[in-house]
């Protein structure tokens, strides 16, 4: 078993997240993390899906995802040349405030809200970075935390949108036939 990150471009149509989630559930692929958001193209959303599975299953997962009509492109993000980021918001007790602030500084995190009893810390980074910060903060009293799914972008000029059919010069315009045409 190993961890793989998939980037998926989908049409911004109703129910598309449910389609992808339903597929993963039905085929018993476990999702570690999933993040969805808009892209440079308002008609297209991008999902970043982190999976833990056997290598040979990955091709099958990608083929099944791509088979969904609303999915425009699927790609595995190369581990080495990809920027991975997660977002953490965490409320920490202020009883040992100096130590909290020292950790926040050491991890390059930021304080984004303060209260008499808790401060809210924001951190952005790779999974290991976020995990390290949480490990350091845990003994100081974490009241609540929320984490985003991982998002990933390949370094350099390469873009997932280059892998869509239309970017490859393949027309996605389909001629509408009638029953007679379908019969061959």
């Amino acid at each position, binding site marked *: 078993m190993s961890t793989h990150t998939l980037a998926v471009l*989908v*049409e911004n149509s*109703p*129910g598309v997240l*449910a*389609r992808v989630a*339903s*597929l993963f559930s*039905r085929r018993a692929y476990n999702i570690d993390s999933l993040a969805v958001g808009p892209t440079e193209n308002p008609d297209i959303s991008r999902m970043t899906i982190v999976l833990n599975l056997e290598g*040979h299953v990955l*091709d*099958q997962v990608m*083929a*099944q995802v*791509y*088979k*969904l*009509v*609303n*999915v*425009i*492109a699927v790609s595995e993000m190369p581990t080495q040349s990809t920027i991975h980021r997660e977002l953490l918001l965490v409320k920490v007790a202020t009883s040992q405030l100096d130590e909290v602030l020292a950790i926040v500084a050491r991890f390059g995190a930021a304080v984004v809200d303060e209260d008499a009893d808790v401060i809210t810390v924001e951190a952005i980074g790779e999974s290991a970075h976020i995990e390290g910060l949480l490990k350091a903060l845990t003994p100081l009293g974490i009241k609540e935390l929320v984490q985003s799914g991982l998002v990933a972008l390949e370094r350099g000029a390469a873009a997932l949108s280059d892998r*869509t*059919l*239309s970017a490859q010069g*393949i027309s*996605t*315009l*389909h*001629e*509408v*036939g*009638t*029953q*007679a045409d*379908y*019969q*061959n």
Partner: protein
Amino acid sequence: MAKEITGASSLVKSLEAAGIDVMFGIPGGAILPAYDPIFDSTIRHILVRHEQGAGHAATGYAQATGRVGVCIVTSGPGATNLVTPLADAAMDSVPLVAITGQVPSAAIGTDAFQEADIRGITMPITKHNYLITDPADIPRAIAEAFHIASTGRPGPVLVDIAKDALQKMTTFNYPKNIQLAGYKPRVEPEAEAIRDAAALIAQSSKPVLFVGGGVIKANAHKQLMRLAELIGAPVVTTLMARGAFPDSHHLHLGMPGMHGTVAAVTALQKADLLITLGARFDDRVTGKLSSFAVNAKVIHADIDPAEIGKNRFADVAVIGDLAHTISALIPAIEKEFKKAEPDLTLWWKQMGSLRATYPVGYNQPEDGSVSPQYVIERIGAISGPDSIYVAGVGQHQMWASQFLKFEKPRTWLNSGGLGTMGYAVPAAMGAKVGMPDTTVWAIDGDGCFQMTNQELVTCALNNIPIKVAIINNESLGMVRQWQTMFYEGRYSNTSLHSKRIPDFVKLADAMGCAGLRCERTEDVDAVIKEAMSINDQPVVVDFRVFRDAMVWPMVAAGSSNDDIMIARGLTPDWDSQEL
């Protein structure tokens, strides 16, 4: 400015523009607006008795004709009653368009009367689906639905339309082109894959053409014949592919799988190359996957890239329409064969011996009752290979696949993937509607028949004269067979008492059909001929058959194909075979 019409009229005009001639359905509250313009349409609407019947009828129509089958039902229970036929069509790659009414858009999500989230429910069992709340979207959704259902790997597409979208005014404009950014099924195979496949075929001394239902979907049976005769390899046809290659052909070893012939099962097991055409390595064919065809390389040709490597690793994957793929393979193989043609003599000696030694057969019941296999065999012999045969699911289905002789594609319809009991009567109805001049036999079990027989009323009222042979062993026969084999004959809840209740002859009569009964072997031919002579109404024949007949050969579920049994506790005499 185009004339304004209702969304409902736009729907019916869209269906007319798609070129359909028939649809199967039942009206209800949410779909009611659509039924007003249907009243005036040239499209024939067949009013079924249960929505499941509408779905299977559309499937039977599609499988018999190659066209898209269409069904139309209302929201909530109407739509959920379509779930089984949609799942069935998805498993067997049948092109369907299902139209469902939905509650008005303002009521969606409120648990309104007859509301069901049919788009959500059917996501995993359709190729694609839509929820339409704006009447302006109707023509495009219908055009896309037909295109998606019928191209690439065929499948069911559901279009759910909110009632207010049917009622509101809109303009009708059926698109000539549609934009589907993520949908472009590959038709032409890659030249490199064709070359690699041809090279493997030229090197193989034990090849098998492993033919699946995709060959029939692709209308590639003629190309398959040329390919088979070029290679000279044994051909096996899966349950979904019966008829893709003539049973009478000398290269044919029959059906592989759980109830396949010894020769077909063993050919796959012992092959050094599987030339897989539109088959998906279903568990009913492979048996225990880890022991399936362990020495074989695999060429996997399919239109669906997601089938490649799903169950079995493919050494060469050829993605494309099978008619194109096979047409491209033939010259590539001819080129390879000019260098060296493989010698299949030894392979044929082995397979020919198995085929001769272990044909499918059956024993006459010792108690003098009628053999179910005999009944099915005689129906096939008397009605002939031009008829369409539609089976339910269970023992009678397997016997039909074994003892009917198929010579042509689209003459064998059954529920292969989902295994839907109750498929036969409505699917036969749909097949007869699509092929009115062809004799259509439903070979059904007494259990299956009691699930969907009400569609015989539809047949009787709409001049759809199908013939139904009930293979009445008063049991859920296949389940009973498993109880015999694996549960020490503890027949828990498999006795249906259908030789006592219901009286199928009276039931047929009550539904406007001719009802016949056959209880003696010597009457079988005469009763079949009598059924053949009745063409002005549906016919139901109650064939009362031997209860304890079993389907052989059999590979028990989860077992290796190497452990095929030709009768209870009896395996082929492998020592006498040179394998």
